[in-house]
């Protein structure tokens, strides 16, 4: 995990990027809930949701190619679970009327659309802010203190593990003088176990070093977060708009189809 991948587009300047990480997180969470809680099988509302999400991405100036690439990582799983909605019902031996099957496909499709919209919002959230600012924001949002410390440590320890992996690879390679003559399983097993244990021990020593420099559960930071009233405008409007769509489309749909 390289910084460059993690924070690749977090340095752009856009209204989305400028939002305080706390505001951004809460907004993303509300928008996701609005979309995800949409009635099952309803496809019509996505005529509104998808453009809203698309506009947000455009505003953020993060390239679509990048967003879609990141979608690809989980896309197969989402596709699979969406497909499995109708399939799981077909596989069950219960008798179901034909119309029911059509409805199942609609539900499957709506699951797919929901999951994808939520996914894009999540990607937007995480790629428009530095990851450690996001964590800082979450800590300031009164996420349980324990989770706050753990995740702040984790952020460091992930790099530590990465570091240990590189080191042991280097150690192994520098003395690998031909095809491994010992069982590969043993060498790699030993190595991964050592990475695991050494990381544990180093995390302990590093933590000691933190304690010896006065750490008491709070990571000090020289950059302060502050939210000005007008920063809430964009997210406020956005949430309002989405809520209106969410409530109104029910009526529009009823009006159109009944």
């Amino acid at each position, binding site marked *: 995990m390289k910084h460059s991948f993690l924070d690749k587009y977090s340095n752009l300047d856009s209204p989305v990027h400028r939002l305080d990480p706390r505001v951004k997180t809460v907004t993303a969470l509300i928008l996701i809930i609005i979309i995800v809680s949409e009635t099952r099988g309803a496809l019509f509302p996505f005529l509104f949701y998808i453009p809203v999400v698309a506009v947000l991405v455009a505003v953020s100036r993060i390239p679509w190619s990048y967003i879609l690439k990141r979608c690809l990582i989980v896309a197969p799983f989402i596709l699979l679970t969406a497909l499995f909605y109708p399939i799981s019902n077909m596989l069950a031996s219960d008798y179901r009327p034909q119309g029911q099957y059509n409805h199942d496909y609609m539900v499957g499709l709506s699951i797919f659309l929901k999951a994808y919209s939520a996914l894009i919002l999540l990607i937007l959230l995480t790629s428009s802010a530095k990851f*450690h600012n996001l964590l800082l924001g979450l800590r300031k949002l009164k996420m349980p203190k324990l989770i706050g410390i753990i995740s702040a440590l984790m952020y*460091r320890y992930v*790099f*530590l593990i990465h*570091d240990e992996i590189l080191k042991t690879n280097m150690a192994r390679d520098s003395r690998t003088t031909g095809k491994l003559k010992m069982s590969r399983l043993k060498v790699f097993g030993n190595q991964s176990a050592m990475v695991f244990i050494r990381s544990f021990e*180093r995390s302990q*020593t*590093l933590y*000691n*070093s*933190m*304690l*010896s*420099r*006065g*750490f*008491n559960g709070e990571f*000090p*930071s*020289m950059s302060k977060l502050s939210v000005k009233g007008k920063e809430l405008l964009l997210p406020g409007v956005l949430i309002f708009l989405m809520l209106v769509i969410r409530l109104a489309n029910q009526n529009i749909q009823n009006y159109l189809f009944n």
Partner: protein
Amino acid sequence: MAAGVKIEKLSFSYTTDKQVLKEVSLEINPGEKLGIIGRSGAGKSTLLLHLNGILNGSGHISIDGIKVEKRSLYQVRKKVGLVFQNPDDQLFNPTVEEDVAFGPLNFGLSCEETKKRVRDALRAMNLEGMEKSVSHHLSLGERKRVALATVLAMQPEVIAFDEPFSSLDPEMVVQLIDIIQKLDATLIVVSQSLLPMLACCSRLAVIRDGVIVADGTTREIVTNRELMKSSGMDLSFYRELFRDYF
């Protein structure tokens, strides 16, 4: 400001089968500069790790009259700065700057004051321009210097240096000796580099297999050939080299 350190009958073992420290007692006056020397594996690092409560052996340690124990740890750690032997045990923040700022910020210094301390410490260690570098992408000598800076920036009353001169170039060693000499703190230095120790410490203690076998002024200890030899510190070889080249 400087504080006194008192170690009484400190014993410690990592595993049940071997005792690493055996009833070590040492008293260090405020402002004193003590060097501890001894063979590799004698227990020097283990001793230093006790000073700010990272390890807990049996026996008593007090800093400035405060007993080192669980509930006094925060206070003790504010007084005692420890530079680890291996800088990789010490650096954990993404950038050099953040690492050096960590201690001062934790002890409640203002942003302004912290920034000043960071700047000063980095300058003292010839690290200007490396503020934004990733700590673990530096050379070992550079990391050692960052580790030293993290502790210097805290301006503790007692500083324990574990092998501070290793991996530093001779020029930097001289610079560090100068800094150490000027420090207004009680100092405990462990190092295998004897020459710089001679310049820094007015008193030397010799540790062998977890026991303090000698303790006296630097001159007393160093000129005691017998003692030096039996503790693995024979310098006659160097003397020959020096004679030969200079």
